[in-house]
């Protein structure tokens, strides 16, 4: 537990990815394989099912700390992190544990699964008493399942690659699927490459920058292939050696999440890699992205969700044909073969090309984006290769402007983690007659300096408190930008928006001049459907 608590501190003390990878590498190379396996499990966000209710946990911590419950609540509001609050409040540590991480998990935590509350309490209190403050914190993070320390899967992959001398893609692949955090698993993970990962390996994605300045500066419109820009999950569909894989851009293997795409595999020629966007899709058009989120959150996909939220891949490009890497071939070549291999009337829909004679025509057609539920256009230079990473020149994204609304700050509550004890999470209202109706929540878009000013305003202008939430004098006006808009019976305003954020603090506007709910309703698409997505 010593090494693990030190690792946690080391990861927490730097924002530099190289230093995080170094700390991980040091840790993995000095601990027993079973510890490394457990640490990797937590760091990549897998964890045993949560065993303990936080209500019970806080009750036991309160008893052990000897403070009243109300004071624990005050402390939690100031800290903003449950595991940390407990670690800070427990009586000063008198010992420090030399026992390894896997002992703590396997011998102390997992057996609590079948224990009654009294046994759980006794075991936890004993654990706290055996640990020092840092260890208690890391342990609390593990048992509360809030294990986030700014380490992505890709950093763990880099560290394992450094420890084992393996290629990162091999490690990524080995970390996929079902495995148990055991010493044996770790030994397999770092064992010499047997070529097992090559078959699934995706290509690095080519990403576009936004087009800036006058669009005419891109030259003759005829030199560009124009497609709609969809908002889903960018992915590669891979068919090799009779097997099918779907990789997300975040290098996550998502094959099992998308059985519709897995089923496409056998219809593709051997040695195929398609680049595209996975979208929830029904009746020839995308569903709101929130529907996709419903699906992604699930481990088990039942028939109901599959029929309610089916997915397709809108195919953008073909990267591998009959086992040959064709990324250097011209766009037109890749496109022609993509159209050829895509099975008709399937879940693989080749992204349609928009034709326009002039930039003026194209600008006009871009206005269709919201009705089509897309973000705007993608512009791809004819004759260009498929490049690696985010590059300027051959691909540009040309998005429509976001919606924007002036709304009044009506509620505020403290943020979490680094924003704890600052009021950073805001609810905004718009006018419905002479009342402000809550319309959207937003957390981002302000500078640190502006956050401090708003925080001071909230403290000085609270009119009512509901737990951590403050109702404030309706005075501050912010321009909110958002992408999609749709009807929602779950929201008091009857409206839900996608990606709301603060575009600007309208210090020039008084609350009375903020927008009304009617103005916002007018943005809704006709009928019962949703507005443009992202």
């Amino acid at each position, binding site marked *: 537990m010593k090494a693990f608590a030190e690792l946690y501190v080391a990861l*927490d*003390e*730097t*924002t530099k990815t190289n230093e995080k990878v170094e700390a991980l590498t040091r840790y993995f190379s000095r601990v027993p394989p079973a510890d490394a396996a457990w640490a990797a499990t937590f760091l990549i966000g897998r964890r045993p099912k949560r065993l303990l209710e936080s209500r019970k946990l806080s009750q036991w911590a309160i008893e052990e*700390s000897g*403070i*009243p419950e*109300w*004071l624990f609540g*005050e*402390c939690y509001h*100031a*800290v*903003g*992190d449950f595991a*940390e*609050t407990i670690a*800070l*409040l427990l009586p*000063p540590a008198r010992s420090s544990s030399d026992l390894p991480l896997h002992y703590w998990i396997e011998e102390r935590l997992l057996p609590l699964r079948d224990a009654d509350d009294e046994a759980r309490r006794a075991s936890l209190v004993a654990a706290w008493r055996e640990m020092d403050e840092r260890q208690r914190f890391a342990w609390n993070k593990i048992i509360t399942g809030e294990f986030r320390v700014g380490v992505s899967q890709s950093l763990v992959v880099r560290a394992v690659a450094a420890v084992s001398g393996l290629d990162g893609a091999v490690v990524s692949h080995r970390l996929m699927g079902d495995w148990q955090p055991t010493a044996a698993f770790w030994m397999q993970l770092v064992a010499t490459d047997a070529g097992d990962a090559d078959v699934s390996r995706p290509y690095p994605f080519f990403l576009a920058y936004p087009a800036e300045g006058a669009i005419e500066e891109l030259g003759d419109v005829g030199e560009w292939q124009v497609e709609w820009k969809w908002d889903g999950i960018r992915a590669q569909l891979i068919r090799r050696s009779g097997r099918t894989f779907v990789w997300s851009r975040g290098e996550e293997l998502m094959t099992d999440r998308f059985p519709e795409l897995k089923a496409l595999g056998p219809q593709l020629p051997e040695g195929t890699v398609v680049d595209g966007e996975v979208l929830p899709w029904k009746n020839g058009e995308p569903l709101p992205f929130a529907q996709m989120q419903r699906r992604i959150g699930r481990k088990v996909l039942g028939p109901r969700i599959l029929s309610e939220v089916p997915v397709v891949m809108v195919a953008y490009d073909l990267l591998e044909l009959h086992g040959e890497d064709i990324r250097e071939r011209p766009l037109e070549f890749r496109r022609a073969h993509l159209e050829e291999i895509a099975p008709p009337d399937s879940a693989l829909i080749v992204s349609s090309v928009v034709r326009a004679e002039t930039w003026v025509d194209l600008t006009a057609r871009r206005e269709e984006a919201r009705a089509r539920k897309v973000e705007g256009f993608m512009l791809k230079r004819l004759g260009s290769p498929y490049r690696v990473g985010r590059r300027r020149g051959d691909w540009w994204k040309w998005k429509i402007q976001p919606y924007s609304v002036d709304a009044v700050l009506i509620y505020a509550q403290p943020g*979490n*983690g*680094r*924003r*704890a*004890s*600052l009021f950073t999470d805001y609810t905004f209202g718009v006018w419905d007659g002479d009342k402000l109706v809550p319309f959207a929540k937003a957390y981002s878009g302000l500078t*640190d300096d502006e956050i*401090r000013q708003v*925080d*001071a305003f*909230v*403290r*000085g*202008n*609270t009119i009512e408190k509901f737990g951590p939430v*403050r109702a404030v004098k309706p005075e501050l006006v912010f321009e909110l930008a958002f992408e999609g808009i749709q009807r929602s019976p779950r929201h008091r305003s009857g409206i839900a928006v996608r990606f709301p954020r603060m575009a600007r603090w309208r210090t020039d506007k008084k609350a009375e001049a903020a927008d009304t709910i009617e103005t916002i309703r007018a943005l809704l698409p006709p009928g019962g459907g949703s507005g443009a997505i992202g």
Partner: protein
Amino acid sequence: MDPLLQVTDNGLYCAHGDFYVDPWLPVDRAMITHAHADHACPGSRAYLAARPGAALLRGRVGGEAAIQALDYGEPISLGSVQVSLHPAGHILGSAQVRIESGGEVWVVSGDYKLEPDPTCAAFEPVACDTFVTESTFGLPIYRWPPEADVFAEIRNWWAGNRHADKASVLFAYSLGKAQRVLAGLDPADGPIYTHGAVEKFCKLYREAGIALAPTTHVSAAPAGTDWSRALILAPPSANGTPWMRRFGPLSTGFVSGWMRIRGARRRRSLDRGFVLSDHADWLGLMTAIRESGASRIWVTHGYRAPVVEWLKRQGLDAQAIETRFEGEQDETGAEPAEGEP
């Protein structure tokens, strides 16, 4: 009888002695607990302060101001009250104000801490009927580690940075905290430099006879100085300014009680936080309150609401009072010490 002190628009006022304690607006006569900006407002006609802090106060309120220095424990009569100043252990010259009238005693603590500090006189418990306390760190999550451990951490961090050829930029409140840090560092570890805001107060401390590790003002360092072995003491407001660029590769640390909370450090994107405060932690506040023997407690700036609630449940007559003191600030005003709006 009227209370000896009342809260007015100018600050805490003693009508029987016709003086204010740490007024936030200019007044005729101001009793100053210590020279931090939120307690020592310029512009008053006459000031009274503890002798060791008089020079610091002069720096804050200007060369022309009338400042009367009192020794710790030296009583004076003002109107119908007896007043004396007693060490508060916060910074050099910090004082608690004891006010006595007709056998009733009030003590205004100003800011204070109970831990020993080589740069100032130690906090002295003063028996009283009413104790006016700060509450900057008035939650039990605030529990200070032993000072020796913190200095060991700072020195290890500095050593690690020297090893990695990185400058060590250590942020600390420029009056009080920076000097306390200097008194605890070993000049044999490497060269120590200061930001101008810090150096100004170091000079006053040295003139008062406080032993501090030798320092060089950053601006006095010749071009081409190798910063990779140096520790640079600077106010937190210097973080992220162009002033920092000269140091090349660096690691940042912040010495503050707020660093007890992980989120407070992460929010500032600092590499390291060192938990060292010139304010009392929860236990310190409760100890001072208990040792004062007071039955009535007025709670000023900080986590007033939980402290008042806690004291009431202990059977004390406690109430929160409105002041404009700010407690341990990081000079950017970022830290919301208040538990209440």
